């Protein structure tokens, strides 16, 4: 089998222990280990974090992504200017295809919680549903490969395909014709301000969520106290039953429509208190 693999060039055996370079397989493994380590430590490979991002509750993904963009873009352009990185490898630009592709991809990420890179880190962490995500990705790649040369896909891919005049992939500085530092420095300032903003927003959400959590615990405890009080009477009077029913419906409906549930509950309370008052004053007269 090894001869089959090397004869048909599935693995090039010269590259097996190369570290540096575009095709070094061992180098890929080492860089991948670093990447997986960072992905798992920042916890952005978990479904909870990604789902809460799209529900606007926890912005860890953005708080990781913003310093990443700041550090990486600054150093990559810095090294490019010095000459250490001779050519940038910008991905291609096809406006229509990227809009459609982005919608599909956002849909897939919000449902499954994984992106291809984070699904590998999740598999390393022990999440077994990442395997099914990867199977779905294989099926999806195969579907795309069989669709790629139909006319519809080719027309979509050609709308808005932008390149520089000498055929390289386009960047915003090349599009506008300015030096990249003119774009980069305002971009970095915007990113820094954005990072400060979402960090404070996240900390504020965290400081609100704890009191709400404790309030819900207290209401549940109060509900249990009322149940024990009602059952300590030998027969449940009609009023206590009515009060129990109204509190039950209030807790059920509160998470879906809090306003209406509160007004219904207050109306019921008013009726119950009215009948209690009537009963008390009936004996007084």
């Amino acid at each position, binding site marked *: 089998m090894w001869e089959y693999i090397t004869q048909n060039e*599935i693995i090039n055996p010269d590259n097996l222990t190369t570290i*540096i*370079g575009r095709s070094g397989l061992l*180098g890929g493994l080492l860089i*991948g280990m*670093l*990447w997986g380590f960072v992905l*798992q*430590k*920042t916890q952005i490979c*978990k479904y*909870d974090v990604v*789902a809460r991002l799209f529900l606007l*509750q926890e912005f*860890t993904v953005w708080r*990781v*992504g913003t*310093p*990443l*963009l700041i*550090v*990486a*873009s600054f150093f*990559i352009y810095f*090294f490019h200017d010095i000459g250490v*990185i001779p050519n940038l*490898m*910008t*991905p291609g*630009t096809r406006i229509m*295809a*990227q809009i*459609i*592709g*982005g*919608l*599909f*991809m*956002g849909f897939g*990420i919000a449902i*499954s919680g994984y*992106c*291809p890179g984070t699904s590998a880190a999740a598999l390393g962490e*022990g*999440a*077994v*549903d990442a395997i099914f*995500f990867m*199977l*779905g990705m*294989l099926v*999806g790649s195969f*579907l*795309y*490969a069989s669709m790629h040369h139909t006319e519809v896909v080719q027309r979509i891919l050609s709308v808005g395909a932008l390149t520089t005049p000498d055929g390289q992939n*386009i*960047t915003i500085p090349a599009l506008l014709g300015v030096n990249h530092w003119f774009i980069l420095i305002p*971009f970095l300032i915007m990113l820094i301000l954005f990072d400060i903003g979402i960090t404070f927003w996240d900390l504020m*959400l965290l400081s609100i969520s704890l009191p709400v959590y404790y309030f819900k615990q207290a209401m549940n405890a109060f509900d249990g106290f009322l149940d024990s009080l009602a059952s300590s009477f030998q027969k449940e009077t009609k009023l206590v039953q009515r009060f129990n029913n109204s509190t039950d419906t209030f807790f059920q409906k509160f*998470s879906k429509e809090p306003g209406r549930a509160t007004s219904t509950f207050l109306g019921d309370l008013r009726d119950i208190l009215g009948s209690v008052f009537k009963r008390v004053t009936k004996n007084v007269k």
Partner: protein
Amino acid sequence: MKDDGFIRFFTAKKWWPFWGGIAFGIVEVLSFLIADSPLGASKPFVEVCSIATFIASDKFKIEYANVLLDNYFSSYLPQISWGTTLFVGVILGGFLSSILSKDFKIKAVPPMWKEFYGPSRTKRFFWAFIGGIFVALGGRFGQGCISGQLISGVVQLGVGGFIFMFSVWIGGLTAAFVFYRGNFFNITR
């Protein structure tokens, strides 16, 4: 030795996102310097598909596989390259990090999914599978996954990266709205 700051940094369960982002940025720059290539995780899936079609056409002599090999897989050769070992490395890296922080646990259904949709494993596997199909289709249309197009595109100030970032965000928000039926700001922690 156990309370040493160095050891505690690597065995923590969660890094503060600022340091995590900086570490991620350092890894990206390292991959540019050492391997001359941005990080990307959707290439391995195309390569595995391409190897499978190559084996199908070579050993099993299926005619459709030859069509695919000439059309799409001529630009993605059936050859294990840097990207595939990168992917295997990510799995190993996640494993190593979770072992160090004692967070490794074989789990099938995430806790938040269990809260909203119940503990059924088949349901979770099904929706993960469907999500995978959408992510692969979207990634191939948009010339790369999140790391390959969004991060590399925005880091190098490419036009496509910004367009892709906006459409991913819009797609994800609509999907979350449809799936969670508008339970935004429902603080359940």
